[in-house]
């Protein structure tokens, strides 16, 4: 019980920090600007389709608006990835190098409680950010389109899983490496997964098995972009998927095993991080 209390004291300090250092404010202002632009664009497209209702069919109109909404979520996905890497980037390495960690670790607190408390704080922040931004995009789409995406209840948790992998990875790296190194490694791995996924998609499209396998290997190494692909797959109408009408219609759909892999990946990263932090000289 008291272990949980100590863990939550760390979590609370982490959340406090995002508020106090105006990270949250900056994210909210940036998010508001993004949503305003998205809403404005959506409104313009919807109005245009309305005016040309004679030439543009209902199905076509809905496809365009759905694609635009997916594009909005894709941008949210990028912003979320940035937040998931940048927010926890400095939290361990910075406090270790500045010496803040010494007074904390000298308290009757387990190293695991420190790491998990920080993990929870950053995870909550990123989850809240995703909920706000994706919620904003979906609400604007419904209001101004009006268009609703199917299976959002599957898509958003998959996006959150993507962020969870990154938060866990960054914290695990933070037990051993300096801030800049972690940033380079985390974004590098994300880029690898990104290009790997495109390799897989194009490989599937043209029927090149080598490219396809290469992409799957990259997704196993960092299962982030695969989660977005699967999320996008679920959040579009079946017709759009089958016709592969948009860049968000994957030619090669990640399967359930990849989801389990991503979840296990995040868990393993946290456990390895705890093991590494316990032995970390301070």
């Amino acid at each position, binding site marked *: 019980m008291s272990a949980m209390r100590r863990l939550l004291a760390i979590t609370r300090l982490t959340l406090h*920090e995002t508020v106090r250092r105006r990270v949250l404010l900056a994210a909210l202002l940036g998010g508001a600007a993004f949503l305003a632009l998205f809403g404005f664009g959506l409104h313009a497209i919807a109005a245009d389709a309305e005016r040309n209702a004679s030439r543009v069919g209902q199905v076509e109109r809905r496809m365009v608006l759905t694609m635009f909404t997916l594009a909005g979520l894709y941008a949210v996905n990028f912003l979320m990835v940035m937040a998931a890497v940048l927010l926890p980037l400095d939290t361990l390495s910075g406090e270790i190098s500045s010496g803040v960690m*010494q*007074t904390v670790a*000298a308290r009757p607190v387990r190293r695991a409680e420190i790491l998990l408390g920080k993990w929870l704080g950053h995870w909550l922040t990123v989850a809240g950010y995703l909920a706000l931004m994706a919620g904003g995009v979906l609400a604007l789409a419904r209001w101004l389109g009006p268009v609703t995406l199917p299976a959002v209840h599957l898509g958003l948790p998959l996006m959150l899983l993507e962020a969870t992998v990154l938060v866990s990875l960054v914290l695990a790296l933070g037990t051993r490496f300096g801030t800049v190194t972690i940033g380079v490694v985390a974004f590098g791995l994300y880029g690898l997964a990104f290009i790997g996924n495109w390799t897989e998609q194009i490989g599937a499209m043209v029927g090149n098995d080598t490219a396809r396998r290469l992409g799957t290997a990259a997704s196993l190494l960092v299962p982030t972009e695969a989660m977005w692909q699967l999320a996008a797959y679920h959040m579009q109408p079946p017709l759009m998927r089958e016709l592969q009408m948009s860049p968000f219609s994957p030619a090669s759909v990640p399967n359930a095993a990849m989801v389990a892999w991503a979840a296990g990946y995040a868990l393993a990263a946290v456990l390895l991080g705890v093991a590494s932090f316990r032995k970390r000289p*301070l």
Partner: protein
Amino acid sequence: MTAPVIAVHGLRKRFGPTTAVADLSLTVGPGEVFGFLGPNGAGKTTALKMLLGLLGPTAGGGTVLGAPLGDRRARARIGFLPEHFRFPDWLSGRELLRFHGRLLGLPRRRLEARLDELLARVDLWDAADRKLREYSKGMLQRIGLAQALAGDPELVFLDEPTSGLDPIGRRLVRDIIRERRAAGTAVFLNSHLLGEVEVTCDRVVFLKQGRAVRELSLAAAPPSLRVELRLGAADAETLAGLARLGSGFTHRDGLASLEVADEEALPGIARWLVGRGVPLYELRAARKPLEAWFVEVMGDDQRPG
């Protein structure tokens, strides 16, 4: 004999090819103010981190507050102020102490009362709700001290607590150390400010290149007094008699000096000189300063660290 608060044997720490602490064994009793002295780079901070469990020793071990080094439960009874400490500077002084109180598991109501007590004790009552980034160096040192005392510890580690403080701040630290000793807290003081150590510590250990090379008790009677005398004309017989009253007698240009066991010897010296009709202009006695010990123990081969 009561159980020691620190009892370690053969502690050793290597970082790659360098040995920071070579072979350290020491015992600190409850309520003792213990000074750890040595030049920069002697291994003081490394030793202290091993006692706190922040660093694992390469070899050796022992107990702190009866528990193995780094034991989590024992840390609840330990306070620590690192040398180059840093705190999240976006917190206020009160918020910092509250965070540490929570990590200590203090119940909510007791915690708030304890915060007021601590803030008042280090004289930061009026600055409690200002951000740490607005604090001066001295204020930071004081909030750091309050942080170290937050859990009402049985053992406090202070790593160079007075460096960077003005004389008033130094006196506050000294007073707090005395208070804690009176309350039965053992204090482990790392310092190279010899004057500070001299007035606060019961016992000191000199550390040189990772080894404890000498131990000195300051609380017990001083080992010797150095007496200096300014005399008028004195004959050889008087000087020879004076030399017999102590040891290490020297005399030059009317200035004589010798070492005696304690203060009781001083009136005898004055009486002897006055009785022989020798004018006595000045008589001074001083304990051998710690600095003299330091130089003697460390040797002349020490370069400024």
